């Protein structure tokens, strides 16, 4: 059914030859930030360390939405330290939300692969080489980090949060059969043109946005690989997703259930 809706299968038609020299590949990391003054230097340091050790070509694009805590000032310092070819600042004036932050960042990305991750240290750059290896293994269109499989897991969650997370995941798997185990996570690697196509198609916001990306990906017959990740709850700063998280998640889930 999915293939009928998609009509053409964009991904399959242009298979790239296997074993291409990785010198031609470039990975653009998109880091959306809002009040991440403490976390930003640490995540950038970890990213630089990881990429210089593994030798992949990269750039880090920081999209700050006018954080009042001075994240932008720290970002400018980092640009000076690591050079403006590695650290690209693409700030916006005010808080316009995560989804549009990705679109904004992607416009300036020069890599052929895009890595999306949170700047709050929940997502550790050490998994990026594994993502890349996984992607090359079967020329996946998307590689998604998963907390729910293999050695994946979380740190700093109480029982209640675990139950909500597992329960929500179970219901989602039953209702949507998405073909990926972690739908609400946002640590992923995309081929650039795939992400572009997906973002065009997606209408929802917040948590649901990540979920919709995977659902649309399946509709368009994109292939998805998974890498288990450990998710360490943020140490510094505040969560931006408010108390009505569950309500908006359920709304989004039902919308996707009824429309896809």
């Amino acid at each position: 059914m999915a293939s009928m809706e998609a009509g053409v299968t964009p991904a399959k038609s242009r298979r790239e030859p296997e074993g291409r020299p990785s010198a031609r590949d470039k990975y653009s990391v998109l880091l959306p930030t809002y009040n991440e003054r403490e976390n930003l230097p640490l995540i950038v340091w970890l990213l630089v360390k990881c990429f210089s050790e593994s030798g992949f070509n990269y750039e880090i694009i920081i999209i700050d939405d006018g954080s009042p805590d001075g994240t932008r000032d720290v970002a400018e310092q980092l640009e000076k330290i690591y050079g403006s070819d590695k650290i690209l600042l693409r700030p916006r004036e005010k808080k316009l939300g995560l989804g549009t932050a990705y679109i904004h960042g992607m416009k300036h990305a020069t890599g052929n692969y895009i890595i999306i991750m949170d700047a709050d240290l929940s997502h550790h750059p050490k998994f990026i080489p594994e993502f890349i290896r996984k992607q090359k293994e079967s020329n996946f269109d998307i590689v998604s980090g998963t907390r729910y499989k293999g050695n994946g897991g979380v740190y700093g969650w109480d029982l209640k949060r675990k139950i909500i997370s597992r329960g929500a995941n179970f219901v989602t798997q039953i209702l949507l059969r998405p073909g990926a185990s972690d739908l609400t996570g946002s640590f992923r690697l995309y081929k650039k043109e795939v992400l572009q196509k997906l973002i065009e198609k997606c209408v929802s916001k917040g948590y649901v946005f990540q979920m919709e990306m995977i659902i649309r990906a399946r509709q368009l017959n994109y292939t998805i690989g998974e890498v288990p990740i450990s998710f360490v709850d943020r140490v510094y700063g505040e969560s931006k997703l408010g108390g009505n998280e569950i309500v908006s998640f359920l709304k989004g889930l039902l919308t996707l259930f009824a429309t896809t």
Partner: protein
Amino acid sequence: MTKLAQWLWALALLGSAWAALTVGALGLELPSPCREVLWPLPAYLLVAAGCYALGTVGYRVATFHDCEDAALELQNQIQEARADLARRGLRF
């Protein structure tokens, strides 16, 4: 077809098969012990599905990995990063 439509179709199909068999429509007269089992079947299935859901979620919550090592490693790397960044002249 949307996921919702798929569910509705499947439920309608199973539901009508069940209804046809229990009331004996279409001249399908099942022996009465069979009918006695069949009559409350949807309720049994519902309970079984509920148990399966609770069991699965419970098991997955209980076996959710706590990544103590990852948290510890991160803490150490944060110290290292702080020192190195300060050396490079970052004002936090």
